[in-house]
């Protein structure tokens, strides 16, 4: 199996999820696809080395998350949080759409790393050590990002924050 075939297999297994995670972070489907594609371009370029990793899929996800966080930082300098929330997501049920729009808008008010930590925790069900790995920080730092994200999300959504999931 050649390099492109091996990367293609990994792409087939992971691309969809990488795009959806990136979307929740950057809050724009077009940019999410760009982020995911940039990550896979890097994977293709460095496959000779990354293929030796225990989990090449984790490598491309890490690259994608970092690119997404960087994209958010750029965006935050240019636009207001409200403008960033963008159009409602593509969901059929009006009640569900309202819920997801609120959640998206609240996520959009968070700084990049807090936003990524929340997305990885809530959407991908990642434990703290994996969130830390994807964000390239210590577990305690990831815990701080997630803790602050939950406090802020609770304020924005008018929900009580129960327990400390970061511990």
């Amino acid at each position, binding site marked *: 199996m050649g390099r492109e075939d091996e990367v293609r297999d990994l*792409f087939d297994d992971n691309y969809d999820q990488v795009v959806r995670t990136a979307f929740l972070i950057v809050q724009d*489907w077009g940019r999410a*696809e760009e982020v995911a*594609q940039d990550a896979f371009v890097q994977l293709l370029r460095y496959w000779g*080395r990354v293929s030796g990793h225990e989990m090449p899929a984790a490598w491309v996800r890490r690259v994608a998350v970092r690119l997404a966080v960087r994209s958010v930082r750029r965006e935050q300098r240019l636009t207001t949080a409200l403008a960033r929330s963008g159009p409602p997501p593509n969901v059929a049920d009006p009640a*569900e759409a309202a819920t997801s729009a609120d959640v998206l808008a609240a996520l959009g008010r968070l700084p990049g*790393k807090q936003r990524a930590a929340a997305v990885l925790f*809530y959407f991908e069900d990642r434990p703290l050590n994996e969130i830390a790995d994807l964000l*390239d920080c210590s577990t305690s*730092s990831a815990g701080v990002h997630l803790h602050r994200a939950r406090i802020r999300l609770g304020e924005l959504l008018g929900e009580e924050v129960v327990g400390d999931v970061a511990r």
Partner: protein
Amino acid sequence: MSLDERMRAGTRAAAGTQPIDTAAAWEEIQMQAQREHTRRTVVLVAAAAAAVVAGVVWGPGIVDSLSGSGEATPVDQPTDEVRVDDGTDDVQPPNAEAGSVIEPGTYTYTDGPFPVTFTTTGTTYDPSRGGDPYRIVLGDPHGMLQMDFPVTVADLSQTVTPEAAAAGDVQESALGELFAGPIEVPADIGAWLEGAVSLRVVEEGRLGLADGEAPWWDIEVSDPSARCFLDVDEPCVFLWPYPDDRNAPQTRQIGTPVFGSARVYAIESASAPLMVVAVNRDVPDEEVSGWLATTDEIVSSITLE
């Protein structure tokens, strides 16, 4: 519904139903990979050609350094042996000593791409900010390179503590170590940055100063795998290749590492024709302007030999 339940349901509803065209995406990825490969090859060939024009014989090491992916070790061998990185080879990180801070003193580099003498001094930037130490690298490679635009370069990188990292974006406004010194930089910095390997220009603008304006460029490392130092696992590219004196311990590194992203300013100065400063992006303009207000003293202290 609790916050956690609401967030789980909301994120799944928001991201879970959008159709994604994976076939088109795969085609785009293949095209991008091909374009990147072509671009890197062209730039590296151009860099090798420029070295020949400058009368400098550079080997594979320096070409790797231009790509931001290898050890910058000038070697005495024909330029036709210059290797063009095809993007598939494993990246060899620089020597572990490469990250050493330059100690105060005078050093002569004789086995670099050009002979050069640097004088370094230790001083304190601004005690009111906590007195972070920094060192200035001085020297005069211009005559030897017969450059018609002597240049002074400074890099303001940052020191990030675990506590600062944990606090979110605090590190973005921290000012840490400073390296400065004359290094060859083209007069058209914008065009030069656009052509730099493993770096991309994402934004540009102008900073208002008391006596004029300074153009700036936001750059970021476009290769997440690039590393400058063995012991720092962050995307990093050397903005400038650097001379490397193997016989001078603790003086391994003269160059400008860009970790992730940086802002580069081109500044006209009364005591030096041009000054380029790279700082971490997102530092407030007023903080940069304040820092630049002190650069006259820094620049005037440089004596070209």
